[in-house]
């Protein structure tokens, strides 16, 4: 069973969201996602300043066996990207919820966060997939 921190929010497409409370949120992929993808070899990140609606493709993570899209969990503008991943995509495998974060969004509006899953709802999604 993969790790699912209680304090984060989640999507059905396996992104996690850390709401900082100051109008920005950090986004990454879950431990479950990184372990299903396998060793990441490349992460394509957005440009700072790019604007996205919830559900838009923001980034791409590429493993030795697949390339997967990362969707914007909520609408917002990219405030910062984790540039270290350009040279060290394995950070996502090693520490999906920490050093493997992908990008930070300045939220258009915090109400979008209420559509996200909490840890127990996300756990149900993962268990459902494993069956």
């Amino acid at each position: 069973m993969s790790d699912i921190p209680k304090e984060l929010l989640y999507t059905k497409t396996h992104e996690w969201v850390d709401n900082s409370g100051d109008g920005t949120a950090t986004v990454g992929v879950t431990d479950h996602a990184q372990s299903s993808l396998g060793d990441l070899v490349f992460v394509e990140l957005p440009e700072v300043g790019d604007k996205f609606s919830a559900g838009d493709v923001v980034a791409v993570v590429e493993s030795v066996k697949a390339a997967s899209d990362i969707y914007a969990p909520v609408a917002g503008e990219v405030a910062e990207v984790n540039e270290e991943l350009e040279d060290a995509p394995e950070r996502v495998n090693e520490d999906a919820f920490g050093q493997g974060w992908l990008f930070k969004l300045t939220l258009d509006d915090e109400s979008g966060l209420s559509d996200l899953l909490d840890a127990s709802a996300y756990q149900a999604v993962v268990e459902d997939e494993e069956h």
Partner: protein
Amino acid sequence: MPFIPHTDTDIRSMLAAVGAEQIDDLFDEIDDRLRGVDLEAIPPGASEQSVSRLMQERAAADAGGLCFIGAGAYEHHVPAAVWELTTRGEFYSAYTPYQPEASQGTLQLVYEYQTMMAGLTGMDVANASLYDGASALAEAVLMAVRANRKSKSKRVLMPAGVHPFYRQVAHNICANQGIVFESVDFDPAAGTVDQAALERWAGEDVTALVIPQPNFFGALEDVDALTDWAQANGALAIGVVNPLSLALLKAPGQWGTGAGADIVVGEGQPLGVPLAGGGPYFGILCCRKTHVRQMPGRVVGRTQDIDGRDGYVLTLQPREQHIRRSKATSNICTNQGLLVTAATIHMSLLGPQGLKNVAATCAANTRKLVQRLTRIEGVEPVFDSPCFHENVLRLPANADAVLEALADKGIFGGLALAAHYPQLDNAVLVCATETKTDADLAAYAEALAEVLSEHAPASASRTSAPSVA
């Protein structure tokens, strides 16, 4: 057991299983107007013997004659060993095999090809080839739009001196994807990119600038300045090159004062592929390493197996269609394997010095041809730029009529440019490769002098009634 996949019995039982009466029922959803078209212009079948006869007659009509036409496809000597080896059973398949790693020889050959192309262009990476030079340019444009994420305009500057067919193909493939091509005129005196026309775009959002070298007129562009302009304006630099010319000219990887061209494409035909109407030829595409994940096509890499032995694999496959589906970098999932095989053997046999000798001989022959032809009264060079192995000459008579009269004498004298460039009335694009001897050049000059003496000057022929001989 018959090796027929679908016998009548099979078909009937499959139709019964899905509840259809006949195969046509499966295509019900396609409008009647769009299917079952009668191909009335297709004649009934002919015997092998009569088809052979017909083809021999047609081939004989093309045979002989001295060809001074270049314009994107060039007559070069191809050593006999090239196609003797290429058509061996082991190589004689145009496809990357479906289980590619089982074909280590094929993969090694493609790897060697990529290495040679990267060396020739001075770029970091080459793919395993595309269909031809024109489609390679279209792919480079699509790639540039994906790779240049700072640019939002999808605006690509396309000099008028890029091969007209390349411009058309790029437009056909890219225009419906929201990509806008803006033409950049050529300087009427130099035949190269008009600096003033380019400057109009300075400071605008430009995604990429296409840089032909040599351009369609054979003229050499100031590639350093153009590459620097692109980089200063946030645009990617896409080089369109004749690979043979790179034996003499500066590699695109060294263009400009920065990191060189971003993407380089070209037609591979001059490297061991004989002239044929419409091909098959092959497209070259190389790029800088930073853009490799946006590169279309297959790439072969070298690695080691668990016992430390060298092995070759298809690499960077997540870009490709079978993994990335609709978001693949292109729908290219094959390469021109056979032609790449020929090119790789051709380059191996010639070596760097041999390639340089061929390129230098071509350039020298074209220079000699131009000197000879411009000694004829009224024949003048149109542009004053240095050239590689083609040049544009203006004739004192209607170019189409002169070329036709030359063809009757067994000389294919070049390409009339007016159809592609109305302002280049009576202009002819000529080319003399290493296949031409001094005697051939003299024969062309003699025939042209003769034809021109029989043709009234262009200005007169337009205004006067046809003369009665």
